[in-house]
């Protein structure tokens, strides 16, 4: 797999009077982690669906590697081999009785022969740490397991870009870490990952690029900057990540020589450095 870029240009999507997207632009450069942020109902999911080709915008274009997506059968087929969308609710995507069968659906549709399909299923399950569940019935899996199986189903298509809608929603803390580990392994296999989330802390810690969906448009930039923009955050019904909030309260200056503050390790490091001059405490 190689890195491809994915772009949205001036997307308009409207249901009736209230357009969900009104001129949304997004640039996903190959190999860069993109977090799509926004409130419930802001249009994150709609944007992901448009990017995946499953929703056709009223106006605007989706470009894969600078070539506009065409909505005929052939164009969609090619697009879906490169871009796969994983929905928030795994039950919207899992239709087969057991894990291995479900994951085999995509490769079978690609017209691969049985041996190749079996090989891809096996590899995908290994990559996501699901091998032990291969023969388990889907209806007896936990929510977190079903989420990973849904990702496996998309991944078995060997997409260059994987779009994930709220991959960590509903997972417990260890489940979130397992999910992030799985995403990390995908990146090692050159898959570009885009996630939609309203977890600002996760976005700051994980993403290379934050894109906030608000009023039908997208504001994209460096996570630390985008997520410090108080005005934008209010309009988007989001909060400043706690790391940035704490840094501001403590008056930690932005220091271009230091790596940007992203997570607990970062802020702990900065604060320890800062208090080095203090008298020792018991």
């Amino acid at each position, binding site marked *: 797999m190689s890195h491809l870029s994915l772009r949205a240009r001036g997307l308009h999507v409207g249901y009736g009077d209230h357009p969900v997207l009104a001129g949304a632009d997004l640039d996903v450069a190959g190999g860069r982690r993109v977090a799509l942020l926004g409130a419930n109902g802001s249009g994150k999911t709609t944007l992901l669906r448009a990017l995946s080709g499953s929703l056709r915008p009223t106006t605007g274009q989706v470009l894969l590697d600078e070539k506009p997506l065409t909505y005929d059968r052939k164009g969609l087929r090619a697009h879906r081999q490169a871009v796969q969308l994983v929905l928030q609710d795994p*039950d919207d995507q899992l239709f087969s*009785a057991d894990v291995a*069968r479900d994951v085999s659906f995509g490769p079978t*549709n690609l017209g691969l022969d049985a041996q190749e399909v079996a090989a891809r299923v096996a590899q995908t399950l290994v990559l996501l740490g699901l091998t032990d569940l291969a023969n388990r019935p889907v209806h*007896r899996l936990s929510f977190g397991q079903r989420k990973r199986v849904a990702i496996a189903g998309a991944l078995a298509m060997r997409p260059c870009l994987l779009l994930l809608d709220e991959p960590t929603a509903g997972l417990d803390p260890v489940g979130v870490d397992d999910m992030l580990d799985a995403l990390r392994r995908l990146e090692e296999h050159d898959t570009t990952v885009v996630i939609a989330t309203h977890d600002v802390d996760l976005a700051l810690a994980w993403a290379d690029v934050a894109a906030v969906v608000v009023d039908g448009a997208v504001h994209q930039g460096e996570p630390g900057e985008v997520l410090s923009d108080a005005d934008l955050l209010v309009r988007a019904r989001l909060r400043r990540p706690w790391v940035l909030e704490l840094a501001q309260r403590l008056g930690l200056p932005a220091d271009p020589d230091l790596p940007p503050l992203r997570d607990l390790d970062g802020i702990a490091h900065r604060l320890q450095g800062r208090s080095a001059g203090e008298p020792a405490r018991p």
Partner: protein
Amino acid sequence: MTASGLALDNAAWDSPWRERAVRDKAVLALGLVVAALVLPAWPGTVFVALAAAALLLGPARVAPQLLLRCLAAPAVFIAIGGLSVAVTLAWDGGPRLGFAPDSLARAGSLVGHGLAGTLAVLVLAATTPMIDLLSALRRARVPDACVEVAALMYRMLFTLLESVRAIRMAQEQRLGYATRRAGMRSASTALTSVLLRAWQRAARLEEGLVGRGYVDALRTLDPPRHASARFVAASLLLLAAVAALTLLVAGTTGLRLPGWGA
């Protein structure tokens, strides 16, 4: 879904015989079903029932409690049906109920056929997940569309069952079944909610699958299953033994109970 849901389905997925070819298991189970039906009730159905129970509790490792639980539902029907046959009805000057030796014998044999047959079906049901049976039907040239609809039904019934349970619990919380009137209202709203939800599910699953390359078939790769000539041979041997033993015992005791459908 928890084990309190479809216990038999769980047993099938966890069965040590799950990897066996469906055809092998079908030979054994359907053979027992036929034997339960055609062999004389005494002692044939007893042997069939014993053989099926031994297979289930032995090599198929079905928990005894589960077996009893699975027998509970048909047992009610078998008991009521058996009783209805045992009782005779005469018309002399108004309906009159009674018993006759012949009717008792018929009821006894009916109960025997019912229990043995049910146990024989369980040999298949408790060892073979539904999806394997459906795959076998596809291989047997049942049209794809029919098999796929059935497979979707199987997947979706669990999500819907979960919804039914959750809705029911929520309604009970708010005393939705406190009176019969409230109960009717609750049942109708539950049913409507589930119907609408089934529709939404279908629409959303459609979209989800289109994204995965669904065009006009829901084909997946069937996992390999292990066919065993020895298993089939042993099954046939067991069936032959049950039949031979039945005829032998029936012959030596000279017991002749009325046959079927007389």
